[in-house]
């Protein structure tokens, strides 16, 4: 389906992971705002090159909006609003570089590629399986909670019992999922000790090296400039 895509639009999952780690370091060093802005623009550019136009526009605009809020709107706003929102704005701005890199990774990398990359990085199988299950199970939790809430509404449950009424079905369905998933996975040979092969091939190409290098420059910049 996607075989026509040019080489430029394929990224190695490891590059995305690297970008994520760089984003982490940049957040950690907390250097000047300009590095952060540059980093956001850089990520936006990668998104554009990868053909994720809507995503790039959405994230850049959101970031711009947050900056606008923090530096222009909030200082001018009444005090009651300021205290309530400063925290929110701060948190989201602080998490933004990582969030953006993470969202990008989730969008362009399939879980299968990610598992392949983890295998290539020689992460033990005992860690790869639970991690991939965990990542895959997050959306399922959201769905489950949604269904459970609908059911709660129908049955008119007292608010004191609500927590129990959410957690217990969630646990039971989680256990059931674990059983089913294991049965399916064992059938497909998850317990086979032989090194697994894959049709998809991942390797570093020119864009990977380029993005990695620029990311490294940003990180070094964040480290040096205080």
């Amino acid at each position, binding site marked *: 389906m996607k075989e026509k895509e040019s080489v430029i639009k394929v990224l190695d999952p490891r590059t995305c992971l690297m970008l*994520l*780690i760089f*984003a*982490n370091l940049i*957040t*950690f060093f*907390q250097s000047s705002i300009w590095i952060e802005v540059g980093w956001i623009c850089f990520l936006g550019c990668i998104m554009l090159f990868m053909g994720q136009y809507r995503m790039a526009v959405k994230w850049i605009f959101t970031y711009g909006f947050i900056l606008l809020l*923090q530096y222009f709107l909030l200082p001018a706003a009444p005090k009651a609003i*300021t*205290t309530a929102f*400063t*925290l929110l704005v*701060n*948190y989201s701005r*602080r*998490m933004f*570089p*990582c*969030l953006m890199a*993470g969202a990008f990774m989730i969008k362009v990398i399939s879980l299968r590629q990610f598992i392949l990359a983890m295998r290539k990085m020689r992460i033990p199988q*005992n*860690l790869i*399986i*639970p*991690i*991939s*299950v*965990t*990542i895959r*199970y*997050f959306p*399922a*939790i959201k769905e489950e909670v949604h269904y459970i809430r609908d059911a709660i509404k129908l049955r008119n449950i007292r608010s004191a019992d609500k927590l*129990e009424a959410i*957690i*217990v079905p*969630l*646990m*039971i369905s*989680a*256990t*059931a*999922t*674990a*059983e089913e*998933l*294991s049965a399916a*996975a*064992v059938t497909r040979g*998850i*317990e086979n000790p032989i090194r697994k092969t894959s049709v998809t091939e991942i390797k570093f190409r020119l864009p990977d090296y380029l993005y990695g290098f620029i990311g490294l420059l940003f990180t070094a910049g964040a480290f040096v400039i205080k």
Partner: protein
Amino acid sequence: MAQSSGKGSLKGKDLITIGIFSAIYFVINFIFMLMGGLHPMMWILMPGFIALLTGIPFMLMCSKVQKMGAVILMGTITGLIYFVTGMFTVVILVTFAASCILGEAVRSLSGYSTFKGNLLAFICFSLGMTGSPLPIWLMHDKFISQISEQGMPAEYITTLEKLSSPAMLLVLFLAPVIGAIAGSLISKKMFQKHFIKAGIV
């Protein structure tokens, strides 16, 4: 069901079970992490609240996977996800790793299947989250100036200053212990009330 021995290595099924319960653990953990931003007191009590509510998933995982490595894997996954979302500091990394190893050791010594052993392991595991507010005491001045630079509202910081007494440090460590005990007792009750009836343990 092959969940009797405490010695065998983790099989595919165990790994999947750990993965699923880690996801639930992480979601509950994350919700309280965010709520900690609302008020400093919430932040200090956060490990306690997390322990209180994650008792059920933790205990359920323990009863399903009675083998070595379950607690460490759960901790590693939580740690890794927090790391990629940029919310981990060095302090929490250390406390988290220590608490996971401690929890695993307790489970291994207690033979994996007893309620008391799992309870003790859960207390150890819950103590790991204390690393999040711990920098308030460890590097008080630097920390305060750092978060005020980040633009935390002045009110939050002054409340935090008031709360950073040695007595509160005790509260910080007592909260997860009490929370873990309460959480385990609740989960025991839930086991009897629901899970055994439903035939899942």
